[in-house]
């Protein structure tokens, strides 16, 4: 790696109104390296990536390609320069075929004025085969698994002969096996001389995959080093600007009395079968398993979003059968859904309105909202949870991911639940906010709430849970106590082994 960087950005500044998102960020990416870009939410990663991919223009600073200064006016300019981006959210058209998706936004091969479908299909097939994906290119994309869809996105990015491939949180919806195959692919591309910018909140992945790391904090580049020169504590220190103690869960609380939540034989055809599960008050129980193992469906069924075909649900000893989320909330059950953007928040509404939304949902609708009480709840939540926002009145969309997730959590804690269920509670949240969210869950359990956490991040479950239930194809495959549970064991049972 003695050659000059292929892509270099220097002294980038960008302001959004009063927010100084970038204040002198830089990054230099060499051909044939995996370059990790890390930083907490709000550190300016997205802004930097958006500049590199031509979606926004910096207020000042330079971007150069192979030593020549360039100015990307739009994403097409960046693509022409050889920079392709695969974003967090899928940008595929699910009903269109693989071929059409690979060529999305570009001209297909033509014969005269008409599309030459056979040739186009062959080209698309070659593009996905290069990535080790061997499927019929005329299949609609929605029929593929999430990791295969990701491959299609990467194939599309590479089919423009990209010299730089930006992967923004590519693993957030993949299972461990899928992540491994993605990493294999990324290493191959690196060996072919492609420069890869890799963004992930999972530091383990960063250390596994990256050759170099650039660390952003508060819009500045605060460190850049080969991966061998950094260890985990140093990296975290650079990212958060302070040392962060590793979380140690408090000892298990033994409490008598009825289970906070008790499921017996709960069945939702096609998703979950015969689930028996108990969560004691003050206990944190984890649900592990691959994507599609039925974890989300199980939580949703308890919350009244699906009607189970059989089985019983008891909350604090009394039999319940929730027909809607409203019923579940009244029954003392709270549910933090997996997708903050689609399920968790109303983005145009203020942090305050979002925060009280669930706890006021059973009040009479002609009532005037009690401003004083609401503001007290909001203030307590903001202080207690260290939610950082300009004011509770700003649209919640303006908060960073970690703060948004805290607002979602605060919304549900404000309902005073007996049972708190969470699906992927720290997805897309940076390490600092993650630690704070863990502490909030420990506090909730401490106060006697039964907590049921579903997560595809096994280290998270190992940190949080007193017990871990591993699901496989809709059934509970194993129950592991805290002492028994290891990442390897969870992965073993989650993969269907016995």
């Amino acid at each position: 790696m003695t050659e000059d960087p292929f892509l270099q950005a220097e002294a980038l500044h960008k302001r959004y109104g009063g927010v100084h998102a970038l204040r002198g960020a830089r990054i230099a990416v060499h051909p044939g390296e995996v370059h990790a870009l890390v930083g907490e939410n709000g550190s300016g990663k997205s802004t930097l990536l958006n500049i590199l991919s031509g979606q926004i223009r910096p207020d000042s600073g330079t971007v150069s390609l192979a030593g020549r200064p360039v100015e990307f006016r739009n994403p097409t300019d960046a693509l022409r320069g050889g920079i392709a981006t695969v974003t967090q959210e899928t940008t595929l058209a699910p009903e269109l075929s693989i071929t059409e998706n690979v060529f999305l936004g570009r001209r297909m091969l033509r014969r005269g004025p008409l599309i030459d479908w056979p040739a186009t299909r062959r080209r698309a097939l070659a593009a996905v085969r290069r990535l080790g994906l061997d499927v019929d290119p005329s299949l609609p994309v929605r029929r593929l698994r999430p990791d295969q869809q990701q491959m299609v996105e990467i194939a599309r990015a590479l089919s423009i002969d990209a010299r730089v491939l930006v992967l923004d949180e590519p693993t957030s919806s993949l299972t461990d096996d899928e992540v491994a195959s993605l990493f294999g692919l990324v290493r191959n591309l690196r060996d072919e001389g492609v420069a890869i910018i890799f963004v992930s909140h999972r530091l383990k992945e960063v250390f596994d995959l990256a050759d170099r790391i650039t660390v952003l904090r508060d819009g500045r580049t605060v460190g850049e080093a080969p991966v061998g020169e950094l260890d985990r504590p140093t990296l975290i220190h650079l990212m958060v600007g302070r040392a962060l103690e590793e979380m140690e869960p408090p000892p298990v609380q033994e409490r008598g009395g009825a289970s906070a939540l008790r499921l017996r034989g709960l069945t939702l055809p096609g998703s979950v079968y015969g689930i028996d599960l108990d969560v004691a008050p003050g206990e944190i129980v984890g649900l592990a398993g691959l994507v599609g193992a039925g974890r989300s469906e199980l939580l949703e069924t308890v919350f009244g979003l699906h009607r189970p075909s059989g089985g019983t649900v008891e909350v604090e000893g009394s039999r319940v059968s929730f027909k809607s989320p409203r019923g579940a909330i009244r029954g003392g059950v709270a549910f933090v859904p997996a997708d903050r953007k689609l399920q968790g928040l109303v983005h145009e509404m203020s942090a305050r309105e979002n925060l009280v939304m669930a706890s006021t949902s059973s009040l009479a609708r002609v009532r005037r909202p009690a401003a004083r009480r609401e503001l007290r709840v909001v203030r307590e939540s903001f202080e207690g949870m260290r939610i950082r926002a300009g004011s509770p009145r700003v649209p919640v969309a303006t908060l960073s991911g970690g703060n948004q997730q805290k607002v979602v959590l605060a919304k549900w804690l404000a309902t005073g639940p007996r049972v708190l269920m969470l699906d992927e509670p720290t997805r897309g949240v940076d390490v600092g906010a993650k630690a704070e969210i863990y502490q909030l869950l420990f506090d909730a359990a401490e106060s006697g709430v039964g907590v049921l956490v579903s997560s595809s991040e096994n280290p998270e479950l190992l940190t949080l849970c007193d017990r871990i239930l591993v699901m496989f194809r809709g059934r509970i495959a194993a129950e592991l106590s805290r002492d028994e549970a290891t990442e390897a064991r969870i992965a073993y049972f989650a993969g269907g082994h016995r």
Partner: protein
Amino acid sequence: MSSDATVRDTVRPTMGSRAAAIWGAANRYAVVLLLLIGIFLFFSLTQPDFFSRANIENLLTGSSILFVVSIGMTFVVLTGGIDLSVGSLLALSGIILSELFNDVGLPAPLAVVGTCLAAAFLGGAVNGVLIGRLGLSFFVVTLGTLSIYRGVVNIWSNTETTYISSSFIDGIAFSKFLGIAYPIWIMIATYVVALVVLRWTYFGRDVYAVGGNITAARLSGINVARTLIMVYAIVGLCAGIGGVIQAARLGAASPLVGESTPLDAAAAVLLGGTSFLGGVGGVTGTAVGVLFIGTLQNGLSISGVSSFWQQVVTGVILILAISIDLLQQQGSGGPLRRLRGFGHGPTSSSEPTVEEGARSD
């Protein structure tokens, strides 16, 4: 950052954010408000007959039907829908009024109340239930009821106008209270009630929440179906009130009225800065939008220009207002703009709820 500073920053809403919230809400219809003031001054200076008591009253009473219906339409658009059937329902309300008064022989006040309730019931029980309870597309459902109600109007009335001779009903259009015509009072009352409902009730919040993110609203325990049924009942009620005013102005129930009402009302709502994607906007903007259309129409006809030019100008302004909005956001709104999609301001969403924060500190 130190946590003390953080807490202080977060819990004390500053005057700056308060001003920003007010400006944010007003900004959504600022362009149209300025244009309204502009054309009002222009017609006042160039047309001696324009700025007279009689003409202003004429302008307002002439706008009253569209005003009332547009206020109702605002609720629907805030939930991310649109009601194409309001014009047909307005015409149907006239026929129902004539039926109740002429044929059933109810006293006029009862007939009026019955008409409004019937229209609200039809809006909620048909459009509302199909859209809110069964989850059908608002566009298809209201396109269907547009056709159904118009057909019923024509069958029931035999396409003939029926006269309604009641001094009470005439009075709705032509009597005055404190020197101001009743339709203007009805406008004011509709606006005030709608504003209070949207700003100061949980139901109002539900409307914004359902329009902003229906899934999050449902998961938060909000009764989405009931909210939607209520919203379509409200626009039905407003169409009923509009139908009564219309019948009173004509002294008759005509099957021909209301053809252009749904699109005019939608234009007024969108001119007023309410997002057609839902969740953003309010009735104050709608009031400005209706007054803009009404002033333009009145001013042009006084100037001797064909009032059909009003349609052309309204369309142009609608597109211009949205373009200006978009350009402004590209100047300042960065990340928010992309989150919200197109056609939204970089601003606070709802009518600002400012006074509470200020009071409690």
